[in-house]
């Protein structure tokens, strides 16, 4: 598995069929779509209002509302605001939307549930407050899911990502049988035990919006109240992205770039900034780039089974180097006053 795919696999927009050729979809097979009013409020939230509602809600909880990280990542967890900030002794609260790329999941825009580029909503509360579950349930109420009418449950789902040496315990949160979020208490990141435990929430935004709006295809989602659909915004991106990921991306180039990134990480980490601190953040961006390049090579079918573990191990080593330096830097900072 690609390192990205190890994270939050089940939060891909909907289902996760493997071996599925891009050109066919369950939708083509003549199943009558079930369109149901699943909401209790008169007008369900548009895709962007869903985001705005979550922003307003988590802002109230003292979160820094960040914008997405500007490097391609496979999941919101990989944003440095989560992976790196989960380490060390500094409290931290942030929420942000992160575009997530899974090149291998592209279906040329023909599958109503699958995208190679989609959005996750990510919240990190460090240390987790003791009422974090209640806060999370409050966010569901805020977007119109009333837990006295909908069946909300916390079902065991432990998160582990051997590629970044990270694991945590938590749940998938089910709403009427559908997984709407992942909820994790980080225990280790980059092979290091965390000092303060961060609680992490990941909402699969498209899936949640489909549920809230009662539509059967991602592309039919109302993006805003003015009638713009998700398809109008992103269908072309899916078509072109899938074509690039599966057909155009040049494996030799990707491989060379991967190796370049790999070489850069230790080189960057060896440098120090103006206050004598290690230069971790740019190095970590290079890890993310290496990871995305690996995912692209994988989508092109260029990674043999036997090579996979090797690539994953290489990315993990890079991520661990960054984690180590991040913690050292913070310790140095404290020691320095």
């Amino acid at each position: 598995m690609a390192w990205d795919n190890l994270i939050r696999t089940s939060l891909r927009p909907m289902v996760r069929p493997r071996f599925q050729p891009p050109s066919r979809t369950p939708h083509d097979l003549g199943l009558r779509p079930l369109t149901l009013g699943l909401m209790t409020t008169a007008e369900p939230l548009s895709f962007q209002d869903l985001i705005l509602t979550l922003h307003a809600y988590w802002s109230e909880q003292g979160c820094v509302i960040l914008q997405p990280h500007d490097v391609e990542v496979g999941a919101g967890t990989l944003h440095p605001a989560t992976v790196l900030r989960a380490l060390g002794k500094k409290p931290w609260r942030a929420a942000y939307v992160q575009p997530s790329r899974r090149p291998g999941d592209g279906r040329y825009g023909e599958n109503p549930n699958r995208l190679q580029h989609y959005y996750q909503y990510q919240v990190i509360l460090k240390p987790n407050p003791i009422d974090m579950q209640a806060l999370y349930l409050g966010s569901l109420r805020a977007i119109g899911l009333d837990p006295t009418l909908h069946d909300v449950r916390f079902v065991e789902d432990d998160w582990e990502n051997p590629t970044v040496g990270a694991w945590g315990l938590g749940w998938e949160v089910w709403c009427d049988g559908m997984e709407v979020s992942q909820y994790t208490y980080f225990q280790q990141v980059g092979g290091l035990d965390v000092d303060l435990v961060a609680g992490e929430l990941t909402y699969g935004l498209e899936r949640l919006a489909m549920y809230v709006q009662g539509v059967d295809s991602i592309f039919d989602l109302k993006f805003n109240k003015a009638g713009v659909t998700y398809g109008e915004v992103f269908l072309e991106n899916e078509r072109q992205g899938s074509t690039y990921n599966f057909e155009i991306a040049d494996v030799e180039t990707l491989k060379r770039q991967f190796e370049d990134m790999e070489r850069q990480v230790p080189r960057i980490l060896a440098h120090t900034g103006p206050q004598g601190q290690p230069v971790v953040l740019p190095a970590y961006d290079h890890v993310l780039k290496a990871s995305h390049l690996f995912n692209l090579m994988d989508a092109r079918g260029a990674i043999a089974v036997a090579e996979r573990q090797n690539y994953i191990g290489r990315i993990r080593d890079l991520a661990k180097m960054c984690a180590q330096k991040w913690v050292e830097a913070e310790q140095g900072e404290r020691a320095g006053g």
Partner: protein
Amino acid sequence: MAELLLELFSEEIPARMQRQAADDLARLMRAQLQEQGVALDRLETYAGPRRLTLVADGLPLSQADRLEERKGPKANAPEQALAGFLRSTGLTRDQLVERDGVLFAVIERKGRQTAEIIAESVDKIVRGFPWPKSMRWGAGTLRWVRPLQRIVCLLDGRIVPFEIDGLISGDVTEGHRFMGDPAPFQVTDFADYRRKLAARHVVLDAADRMRRILDGARAVCAARGLELVEDDGLLDEVSGLAEWPTPMLGDMDPAFLSLPPEVIRTSMRTHQKYFAVRAPGQPGLAPHFVTVANIAPTDGGKLILAGNSKVLAGRLSDARFFWTEDRKVSLDDRLEKLKGVTFHAKLGTLYQRVERIEALARRIAPLVGADPDLAARAARLAKADLGTGMVGEFPELQGIMGGYYARGTEPDAVADAIRDHYKPQGPADTVPDAPVTVAVALADKIDTLTGFFSIDEKPTGSRDPFALRRAALGVIRLILTNRVRVELRSLFPAAVQDDLTAFFADRLKVMLRDEGRRHDLVDAVFVLGDDDLVRVVARIDALTDYFRDQDIGAVLAGYNRAASILKAEARKGPLPDGPVTVLPGAPVAEAELIRSLVHVAPLVEAAVRNEQFGPAMSTLGDLRGPIDAFFEQVLVNDPDSDIRDNRLKLLNQIRDTFYIVADFSLIGG
């Protein structure tokens, strides 16, 4: 006598861990109280999604007072030694007792308060609780399965005060997450606790939750003229997912019924934790499902069911997509794909494994009465479904999907064998009896075993990552159920023959013991080293029958005496060997025993040769009288060495004759 109530209230505990947690809590608390000498009448524990609860009755409020005696110096010891002893005991010289010239201090220990002991015990239990996986949270260091939120601890209605990592014990807990009064509430004792929880929509006891689910699920089915497909494993799991479990019957698009029922059930069960539903007297499933919600909503479940139906439709659409796509490619054509799949780094690809299984199935076929070509064909296709979309999505349908995909284009015997060749998968699973299936099932498991043994990946202790014990047990059950006559070692490559045969002997022993056979009888047969499992078990069965309701000590007294004399003699030098004769002047009992042995020995040999172990045993039994008479009337150790040697030879032959059936020296020990 007081009641103890303890509740450990946390965020949602994984369903699969709850039962064990309740057992562990009971065990640990019992051990703590016993260690401290605190008696109790009854102790019960309960586990649910958010709480572990313990109630115990009949506790004293304090330990009994005890007198403790400490030995001190001799009465005439130097002043310094005495002073030290007085200091350490806090007594004066005249309070000491003198006995046999030694001084003793008798100290009265007041019994400690039970509350104090409980506070310490809970601390120890919480900090050392054996969760399969535990975690820290927030800024704390305490570990629990998920964040621990509250502790209720009441003894005789009063709070037992303590603090664990910032968490302070009290008398306040919470009810259902979403239903009823959300405010935390106080409790006074277990009865009050249970009543208030019930009023706040929490069913405390897992058994009650299961009953509620089962009754409710049956009722919602019956209301629509339907029938629940019961599933104990699922029932157990969902009872750990809801504090107020509420079964609801949902609808499924009947178009999905064209899918194999195994697919529908697996999708419902593994992804959604739904029960399947059928119409009474009808084959297959009905287009409905039962979901167990955690709330009884005010709209009667309309929204919940609509949502669940939609999710299920999405799941089954995928399944139908796989079902359609998978059948476009023949299993033969899928074999090629297995060349790219590594089975194990040291054991090659799946394709190479298929080739090995194919050859082995062909070899085994004649032993089980199967057509070798059919067995080889089935073996060749048995793993092809691993490359299908459906098995990629539902690994537990491996074999079953291959069976479906082969049906129609392959002979039924082949499709059946593909479907069933993973069986038996566990002690509760059925054992195939169709010859082609048996051949492939044996070949599959034996290849796994020989493969991993040849790269030295044998199970050790509790580590058995490749489930080799289960594979061996599967082979054993296939062989015994189908009475497959084969010398097991002949099926293994020379390099692993000894190890693997010994491994099988071990597994068979364990299985027979688990089934309740006597250890000594099992051992007495195993020591013979036979590797025909059917014969081994037949021997053990014959011994078991023979010795049933018998005083083994009496039956074997003569044999054992012969064996121990031989053992003693063997220590002195080589035992005499050769034919036994009735020497002139031999006592009647000796002559009689020789005559009996000459008569019995060939009969026993013949019976064993014909695998008539029951008759062999009863024939051996005929020797009991003559042996007993011999030992009553004859002294083996005669001064005349010819006579003595002749008698030793006789005993030796008796032992050899017995040994044809089993090593009786291991019986009854």
